[in-house]
């Protein structure tokens, strides 16, 4: 086959909604874009453990602690599924870690905000995991097989994340005056950064069309954001909390809620590294990696020793 017919074959697979698998021919840009997208997603899962891990020892009850622990462990798993999917495209795990630790690779900017109170665990589960689910469900039908399969696994696990967050919010919102205030305060602080999770407006994301064509993005940033606003407004009513947006209004004609302007300057700033916790998150992550080195080395040495012993025994027999 010539390069041209390879491309034609690839295009026809994409058009017919047939999965691309690791050994299939694919255009370089498709591979590169996927590596960037999947590894960024993996980094987000891994860094995303930090703001919540921060509260495990301070959870208000054993039940909440067990739940939060299970959720954070799930996020580690999500990172691993995604790193594995990216590895099938020809990048090594160590390379991806290097990119994260050197600051070359990005992760979701939401994790650069601080978790100040217990209510933040509720707001994160409800809003941040909620937004993530909105993003991830369409990706279960992404064109790249290993990515789509990883997303199916991730989505199955995510729904408990959002529910446990909502449950925390509900408990606080129905609690004492102070607890309700705490819930509202967390909602106020996490709402706008959650809307930013969907990325810049469509008019400013020039790569969207290509990604939609490749089926590695199934809905645009603005479409997903609107869906998220619409469902969250209804959930906030159940909680009895106020939407932190005075411009929020039902638009009969559109059949959607209109919402206020997002502060994209803030978004750009956080992405650039100037968010409240960028430095701390990256430092913590690097420290965890460096302090885990002896464990990785010891496991390797142990494996070699076990192997050697087996060989020795085989020789003796």
């Amino acid at each position, binding site marked *: 086959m010539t390069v041209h017919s390879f491309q034609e074959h690839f295009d026809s697979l994409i058009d017919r909604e047939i999965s691309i698998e690791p*050994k299939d021919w694919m255009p370089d840009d498709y591979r590169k874009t996927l590596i960037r997208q999947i590894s960024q997603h993996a980094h987000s899962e891994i860094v995303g453990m930090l703001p919540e891990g921060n509260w495990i020892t301070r959870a208000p009850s054993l039940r909440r602690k067990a739940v939060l622990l299970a959720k954070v462990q799930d996020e580690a798993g999500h990172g691993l599924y995604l790193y594995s999917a990216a590895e099938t495209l020809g990048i090594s795990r160590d390379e991806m870690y290097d990119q994260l630790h050197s600051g070359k690779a990005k992760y979701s900017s939401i994790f650069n905000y601080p978790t100040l109170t217990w209510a933040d665990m509720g707001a994160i589960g409800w809003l941040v995991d909620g937004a993530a689910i909105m993003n991830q469900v369409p990706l279960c039908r992404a064109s790249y097989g290993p990515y789509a399969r990883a997303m199916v696994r991730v989505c199955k696990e995510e729904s408990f994340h959002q529910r446990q967050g909502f449950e925390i919010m509900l408990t606080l919102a129905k609690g004492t005056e102070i607890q309700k205030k705490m819930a509202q305060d967390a909602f106020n602080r996490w709402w706008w950064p959650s809307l930013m999770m969907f990325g810049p407006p469509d008019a400013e994301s020039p790569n969207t069309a290509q990604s939609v064509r490749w089926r590695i993005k199934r809905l645009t940033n603005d479409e997903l954001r609107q869906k998220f606003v619409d469902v969250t407004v209804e959930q906030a009513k159940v909680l009895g909390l106020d939407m932190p947006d005075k411009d929020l209004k039902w638009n009969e004609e559109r059949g959607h809620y209109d919402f206020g302007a997002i502060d994209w300057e803030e978004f750009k700033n956080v992405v650039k590294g100037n968010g409240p916790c960028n430095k701390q998150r990256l430092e913590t992550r690097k420290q965890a990696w460096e302090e885990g080195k002896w464990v990785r080395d010891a496991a390797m040495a142990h494996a070699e020793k076990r192997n050697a012993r087996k060989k020795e025994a085989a020789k003796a027999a």
Partner: protein
Amino acid sequence: MPAKQQKRTRIVYIIMAQQEITKKSEWPLWEVFIRSKAGLDHKHAGSLHAADAQMAIENARDVYTRRMEGVSIWVVESKNIHASDPSEANSLYDPANDKIYRHPTFYNLPDEVKYM
């Protein structure tokens, strides 16, 4: 093997192991297969890194079966998997298309034959 020689062999192996580590820090990659229920086949679940087979199984347990997704785990080091070439898919699988007589629906039976 005399004890002294045995000890020396072991030390040599340890030194070899250490050289291996400095050469390559990344744990090898393993493919994970899981039997979700007794009586079913093992199915590919994904992959992971681990120092050896035993640790790969332990890691697979933590990564892929946190919600009772399995009753049995296989791990195979990824470098030992050999796959067919997708560009040869046509020549490999096409011949099956013109052998429809391999399917039961190819045969016409009289209506009187109820169960076959």
